[in-house]
């Protein structure tokens, strides 16, 4: 399936989630059910989604602290004094961050990186941005490879830097890594030019979005927006 409908759907859905008033706890429950259904339809393993959700963890931890440090009226929970506003604020961040991240994970799990970038291009993102992004994606693997080789070379010479105090050799190798990767990229680019590269990658298997795709977008985002607007009206 083409990427543009998915990107548009993801973005609009997250906006709906972000605008939902935090008091409407039922709305967030419905969102969660919908998202689980979508994960099921897309046949993504639940474990995959959970491990990716861990990336949001630092901010959720931050959100957990808020009820204790926030101001305003206080109440008791299991004998500990917490702020009411703080509890709502923590819930707000927790729910929206997790649900928003789930939508993003849905998008990333079903779309290849280069397809996402090309989809952005179809959505009128300037070609400069998409071409740099495409090169970035290609070079990520290159850099990871070079880094792996440098680490092997370092440990083969018995050096295993870990602490902040030994950051100088790491940073030095970072600089050397940059130059090596760049020169490799230069050679690759020259080879591409000599084989007739015109500046944009030919889209070999980028499918075009069909009407059915866009109907699906309207259906899914419509569902989320109906709930969001309903929550706003009821509140």
């Amino acid at each position: 399936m083409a990427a543009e409908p998915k990107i548009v759907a993801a973005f609009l859905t997250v906006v709906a989630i972000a605008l939902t008033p935090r008091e409407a706890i039922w709305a967030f429950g419905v969102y969660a059910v919908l998202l689980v259904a979508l994960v099921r339809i897309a046949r993504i393993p639940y474990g995959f989604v959970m491990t990716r959700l861990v990336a949001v963890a630092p901010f959720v931890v931050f959100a957990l602290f808020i009820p204790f440090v926030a101001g305003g009226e206080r109440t008791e929970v299991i004998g500990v004094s917490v702020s009411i506003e703080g509890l709502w604020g923590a819930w707000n961040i927790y729910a929206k961050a997790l649900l928003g991240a789930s939508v993003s994970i849905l998008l990333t799990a079903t779309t290849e990186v280069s397809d996402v970038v090309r989809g952005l291009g179809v959505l009128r993102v300037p070609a400069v941005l998409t071409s740099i992004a495409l090169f970035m994606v290609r070079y990520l693997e290159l850099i990871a490879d070079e880094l792996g080789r440098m680490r092997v070379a370092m440990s083969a010479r018995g050096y295993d830097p870990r602490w902040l105090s030994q950051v100088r050799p790491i940073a030095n190798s970072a600089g050397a890594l940059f130059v090596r990767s760049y020169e490799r990229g230069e050679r690759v680019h020259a080879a591409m030019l000599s084989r007739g590269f015109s500046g944009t990658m030919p889209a070999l298997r980028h499918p075009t979005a069909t009407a059915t795709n866009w109907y699906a977008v309207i259906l899914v985002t419509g569902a989320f927006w109906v709930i969001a607007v309903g929550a706003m009206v009821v509140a």
Partner: protein
Amino acid sequence: MHAPDGFLNAGTAVATGAVSLGTVGLALRQVRERLKDKAVPLAGITAAFVFAAQMFNFPVAAGTTGHLLGAALAAILLGPSVGVVVVTIVVVVQSLVFADGGLTALGYNILNMAIVPAYGGYAVFRLFRRVLPKTGGGVIGATFLAAWASVVMSSMAFSVEWLFGATAPVSFDAVFAAMVGVHVLIGAGEAIISATAVGAVLASRADLVSGAADLNRRQLGDRRRVRTRTFAIAALMVSLVFAAIVSQFAIDDPDGLERVAEDTGFAESGSEHALADSIFADYATSGVGNEPLSLAIAGAVGTLVTLAVASGIFIGVRERRSRDPATV
């Protein structure tokens, strides 16, 4: 510092989104002029590099880790507008492809992690390039300070946004103190890594560093350490900024001893300071009505007086030693 959705309210998300869109759009115009064929791969590889570098966490304090931001590095290597575009791409791809950073948070994530540190860091870089010697060593020194400043500026930007769009009743003072405090430490790691990386690139491919484009080969090869006098001037400037500007954000709550004194009740037994009527009592300049200005003057004067006295003492000790041939 990749903020998730719902961290700041909708108004702030929209406003910062508009600012980011406009700024990146302007930067793109400049980029199109400057970016010739060869430079797209270079921009792509810097983006990949920044992306990969952001994955490495290093410990800064108990239980907290920091990671490289890379915006100042990108700005110094590629120029500020290309640097901003590169880091914006990194942030967007991280959000869209790796679910790192909310989709609705892109506005303020781009502002905090790409625009502010790239342009701000580059400004600090140019400032210190003027002050430091025109050599390779000077470029590295300027990179060090610019990278540090860029991280601190980034955290300040986030705190200011919290002032307008907080979704939880945590005070601006608390957020500012926590964010900026931690990021001053993280900035140290960023500074070391950026400076060393630029040094390594200067050594082999100096043409890739646009911030050093005005240096000829002899100057580039001059990697003498920054002189002590230059370092002292730079340190003085930083101290004055802290004393006059950063002190404005200091929290007025009592410190440990005062707090204990108030709680246990022996605060009353303290008598007034003998010099309570002096010009600068309580870190305020008497006769200056404007509160921030009075605090700034008191801070600056205090810094300069301390510098003078300390220098005098050390010069005196040093001369004493050199006069006595027995002690070396």
